[in-house]
């Protein structure tokens, strides 16, 4: 068994997909509330013309949260023609629905309306857009925002998702494997973030920021036989991130992080983030790379897993030490009983 098998096990433990059972309750809540909000919008004269899931579920980069709080980003889109001039209006409508449904802590944030199902560990963000032609505009503004602080801001949520899911840069025959490795790497690094940063800082190390970093600097790695090599890919990708221009040293040892959205509005994802956050990200990424290289250099898988367990947390399991003298279990062939393979001599 090589180290990749341990990465595979780790990935299976942390990955989260929309169809996963672990997510079922969150999905049920989301579907139920979405209907109520859509109905309220309809009554208000600006019906929901489409809705979609945003974020990691759509890009297959979701992970099971350590805290157990499942997170859904639900986008609701209304037509430009009928959309209220004030972008906060539909957000207030959403808040009303949520409060009617008994949410005590629902609130309007600048980009969304957020609510926690504390009982079910479900957290839902409603993001409101209006659509004019092909252009989406995000409803920006808090409940109390004046005219200067609220706007329908041009944005491209679908373009961003498509960009993350885009595999056209990879060879036609290799796209599936490379895209899958990219998604695994994003999951690893998100889990690393959750383990290595304090809760308050982790919430500022945005998942979309990490996703864009990995996507832009992806250094995929496979053996010559095509076997995935996630450890090598992670080392090289983190190395490439550190070697790029995302971090600016503003004071000695203090870094500002800047990662631009690859789609409209092209803003810095970490806009407004502190020097401390940038510095922590830089230093912890440096340590991540250093430790990964250290693990790669070890021949003992158990020792490798100890380092990876320290980086990624308990879900990266450390195998039991081999029992002395015991013979390996008769290996099972994972493929079918018969496979056509025509070779000769």
């Amino acid at each position, binding site marked *: *068994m*090589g180290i990749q098998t341990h990465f595979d096990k780790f990935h299976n433990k942390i990955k989260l997909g929309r169809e996963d059972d672990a997510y079922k309750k969150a999905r049920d809540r989301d579907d139920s509330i979405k209907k109520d909000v859509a109905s309220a919008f309809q009554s208000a004269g600006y019906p929901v013309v489409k809705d979609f899931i945003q974020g990691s579920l759509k890009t297959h980069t979701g992970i099971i949260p350590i805290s157990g709080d499942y997170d859904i980003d639900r986008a609701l889109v209304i037509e430009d023609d009928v959309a209220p001039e004030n972008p906060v209006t539909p957000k207030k409508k959403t808040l009303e629905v949520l409060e009617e449904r008994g949410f005590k802590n629902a609130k309007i944030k600048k980009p969304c309306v957020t609510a926690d199902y504390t009982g079910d560990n479900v957290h839902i963000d409603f993001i409101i857009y209006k659509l004019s032609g092909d252009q989406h505009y995000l409803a920006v503004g808090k409940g109390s925002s004046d005219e200067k602080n609220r706007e329908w801001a041009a944005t491209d949520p679908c373009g961003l998702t498509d960009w993350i899911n885009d595999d056209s840069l990879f060879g036609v*025959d290799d796209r599936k494997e490379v895209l899958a490795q990219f998604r695994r790497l994003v999951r690893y690094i998100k889990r690393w973030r959750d383990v290595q940063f304090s809760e308050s800082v982790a919430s500022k190390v945005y998942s979309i920021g990490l996703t864009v970093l990995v996507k832009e600097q992806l250094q995929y790695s496979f053996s010559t*036989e095509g076997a995935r090599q996630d450890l090598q890919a992670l080392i090289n990708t983190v190395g490439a991130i550190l070697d790029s221009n995302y971090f600016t040293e503003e004071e000695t040892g203090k870094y500002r992080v800047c990662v631009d959205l690859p789609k409209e509005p092209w803003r810095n994802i970490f806009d407004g983030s502190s020097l401390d956050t940038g510095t922590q990200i830089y230093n912890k990424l440096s340590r991540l790379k250093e430790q990964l290289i250290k693990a790669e250099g070890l021949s003992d898988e158990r020792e490798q897993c100890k380092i990876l367990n320290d980086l990624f947390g308990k879900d990266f399991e450390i195998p039991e030490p081999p029992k002395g003298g015991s013979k390996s279990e008769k290996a099972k*062939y994972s493929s079918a009983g018969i496979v056509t393979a025509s070779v*000769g*001599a």
Partner: protein
Amino acid sequence: MNKELILSHISGLDCTARLVEAGCKLVVEFVVNEKNVTLIHTFPDELISMPKFYLSNVQDFGKLAHILTNQNDESGEVCITDALSTAINTDQPELAYRDTVDKHLQLLTQLIEDPAYNHAEQLREFDAHWKILCDNAAGGSNELFVVWDGNSSESMQVRPPRLETGSDLQTKPVALAGSYTSDRNLTYALAIAKLETRQVIGKAISIWLSHLEPPPATQYNLLEWYFRIVAFADQPSQRELRKLRKKKYREFWLVFSAQIPNGETMFALHWNACSRSTFPASLDGIEADNWTVTPYRVRSISPSALIPRGGGSLDLKGMSVLLVGCGSVGSEIALRLTSAGVGQLTLSDPDKFSEENLYRHILSVRDIGRLKTEALAELVIQKNPWVTIDAFDKSLQEFRNPVILNKFDLVIVAIGCSNVERVFAEFCNQEAINVPVINCWLEGFGIGGHAIISIPSTKGCWHCAYVDPKTLTRGLTSNLNFLSPGQMIMRNHRGCGTQFLPYNGIAAGYTAAIAADLAVRFLEGQITSSSKVSWKGVDVEAKRASLTTTWRYRHFTDSLHILPLHDNNCDLCVAR
């Protein structure tokens, strides 16, 4: 060619140069040891090789190395270097002429000023001068084939030429050492010489010289030269010569061997008397008995000479290899292994050669219906006579016997059937067989071929080549393959039972080459750990057949490179 421009370029050297005979010839003159040296060159119509110069006053310098003269010639061709080993600037002949004249100046100056260098150089080119001597002798181009082991001092029987035209082995005399008359392989290989039909006309004895002198310039000095050099014959050779003098002969040959600066040389003298006479011990005896002596070039047919000359290694002569599978790949492996010098080969294959095998197999129409191993053994022996071959019609499964397997230095499996190979590999693993095994196979449509060597007690085994890249557990098809598994690659043209894999003799040859290379490198000690090697072809035919390729094919850039076989995910290697 602008001859004036050439002159101006040469004028910068330490010599004088002028054009003569209406500019058809170039004369270069310089002085060494107070002697005038005159070189003459006739301009060619087209400059395609290094310009040739003749030393005009050749007699003035005694015998010089690198000057090729014919008998009675007053001039000699100066040999600077092999024409094939020089690249000439034909666009700027003046530069080519300047450099050529410069080389002549340097060489001739050194040869004339330094007698020791001249002597050593004459010995170094002994064969070339001996050939000139033979070419100028009565009969011309005298050559004697000598079939021996290259070391023994045993006497040989000489058989005369059989035909006037044809193979050299039929048109030249052949001296055959006694031990070789019973050599079954050699007899078979030399069948074309029809030695059995050629009556023995005399004997030849081999003489080892501890010291040699450059050959005489002409045959007139040959006997005098012979009596000088024969004094340096070693003790066993002296004994043979003394024995020779005790009997009377009509003719016989002396076959000489001696060390020269660039290796070993062989040459022969044919002695012929008007009537049966005693072999002379001095020049006086020659005159009394009318002995005539003729120089012969020796064409040695001996393993110690021909195996290294052909790139083989004498160190492999004692190596024993089992080759199972004598198809298009296996048969080529057999040839290449023995070409490399492997001395003991055991072939096994239950198949008979069929007309359908013809175009990609090295066997021929006359072998149809014969066991592949028997026909192949004959072919191999004819090509590389110094090999011992055993041929069996057993399958790989039948070799699952530790006692048999452990006798070999190496086992090569060229059957192209992973199922049987898997069973064999598991047997070797369970029984801790200590013999390295090479497995090789090719894929259809010229897409590529592979060879792996698993060396016990080193990292990497047969199963490493079968770890499934997707599941990272044991797979049923090799992870080295270039065509994706699960595709219908076999073809048939007459229904069930006539399936075949489409590939040609070139693909078989490439695959055999990488397997044989792996084998030879292992036997020579260059490869000490389990390894793999592949050759990658183009995918034109595969695409035409709508076949898909593997990740390995698309990303593989290490054709012919020997890489480690070990796969980190191999459960057997982990268990070890």
